[in-house]
């Protein structure tokens, strides 16, 4: 579905990515794991068009989207749920969700959007109780759910999830992980960036491990879960 070929990029003066290639199959969950500064978020931002690659191509179903503007990429159905949520704090929960459906604005989608709205409230019942609250007053877990919900309101073909578990209590994290699983069942392709490698590998089909802007490991999630090197990548070899 999405083919990234040999991209390099700079981020705030740092070479963040060095000739990275990856392939994303239709309907799968692909996990990107790696430590801080490994370049995971940079990959997502490249796909979303927020930064432009200096080298390489990004193809969506055969179309080169490397030079598209962020809004155009959203129009194509690639939706990112950014790290740190980036909610519209002073806006209410409901408004945040409505803006999530911005790409489908127009009269003909009204019905579908309200259906999706109901559906998301089913997925995250807690949001239903908070509709009129300002987003910034939600707890961390609720904010994360809102961020995901907002992403889903755009009916993504491809959902880019950046650190959905960041800073969440384990119980909430578990809930979010299970929701991600459910989304896959509904047919959404998901690119998941996670620090919690174990949790990510449990639900992902395949995974790539990044380190300092380079691809270190790749393979099926099950294999990686058993990999000794992965542990090293996280905790160092102590030499």
């Amino acid at each position: 579905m999405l083919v990234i070929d040999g991209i390099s990029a700079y981020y705030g003066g740092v070479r963040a990515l060095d000739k990275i290639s990856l392939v994303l199959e239709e309907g799968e969950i692909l996990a990107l794991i790696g430590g801080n500064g490994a370049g995971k978020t940079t990959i997502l931002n490249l796909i979303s068009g927020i930064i432009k690659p200096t080298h390489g191509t990004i193809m969506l179903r055969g179309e080169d989207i490397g030079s598209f503007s962020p809004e155009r990429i959203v129009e194509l159905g690639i939706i990112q749920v950014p790290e740190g949520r980036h909610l519209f704090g002073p806006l209410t929960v409901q408004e945040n969700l409505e803006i999530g459906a911005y790409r489908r604005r127009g009269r003909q989608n009204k019905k579908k959007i309200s259906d999706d709205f109901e559906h998301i409230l089913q997925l995250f019942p807690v949001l239903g109780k908070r509709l009129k609250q300002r987003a910034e007053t939600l707890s961390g877990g609720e904010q994360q759910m809102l961020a995901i919900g907002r992403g889903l309101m755009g009916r993504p073909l491809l959902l880019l999830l950046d650190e959905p578990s960041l800073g969440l209590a384990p119980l909430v994290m578990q809930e979010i992980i299970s929701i991600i699983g459910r989304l896959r069942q509904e047919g959404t392709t998901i690119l998941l960036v996670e620090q919690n490698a174990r949790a990510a590998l449990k639900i992902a089909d395949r995974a790539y491990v990044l380190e300092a802007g380079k691809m270190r490991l790749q393979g099926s999630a099950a294999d990686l879960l058993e990999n000794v090197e992965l542990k090293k990548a996280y905790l160092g070899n102590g030499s």
Partner: protein
Amino acid sequence: MSRPNYILEINSISKNFGGLQAITRLSFNVEEGLIFSIIGPNGAGKTTAINLITSMYPPTSGEILFEGQKLFRKKPYQVALMGIGRTFQNIQVFQKMSVRENVMVGCHTQSDSGFLRCLMHTPSVWKEEKVIRQKTDAVLKFLDLDSKADMLVGGLPYGVQKRVEIARALAIEPKLLLLDEPVAGLNLQETEEMAGTILKIRDTGITVILVEHDMNLIMGISNRITVLDYGKKIAEGSAKEIQNNPKVIDAYLGKEL
């Protein structure tokens, strides 16, 4: 058993950001002359800890002692004058100044001419400048920056900028140096050089507190490591102890669900 010589003592500090508990009752002591590392996953409160130590904001509760003196209600610049230097996670070099000037700004603490004298450029200013220049040269040499001394920092590679930031912090003649992710964004070779630099700094007798994600670096050079998770200390010990601590492994790889 003699009490170790602690340069920094942190007693049960907490920090609350509008309801968000960033740090909860954190305590640790840093022994003089060692490299002390703070690690933990994203959002664990490491940078907050550094900002508390440098009085960027006051702790909600608890106290911090530097060389036995309380840091309560000190302004950041006063903390610097006491001898605590730091670098920043997203580097804060002065882009439009040369490497040398960046370091010279660091020498601010060791000079005292004011506006009037500087406007006139009195002989005392001239003398002071000379001392500052010598000092700067020494620091630049120490960090291998002398070849780039007159280049503008804004145009230099990221790795060099990081070194400039450290050089600048060293110029204030700190007793304690706080490094916030000094190797983030550096390549392997640069990381190794940085490790050497940090060791060299420690060897001059400066205590170093290191916040990092690069485990190879941490495990390689730290004398002691504290692990934070969700603003709490979950482990402290040597590299070996930390690597085999199940709580730490859980925190990094994620808990079994």
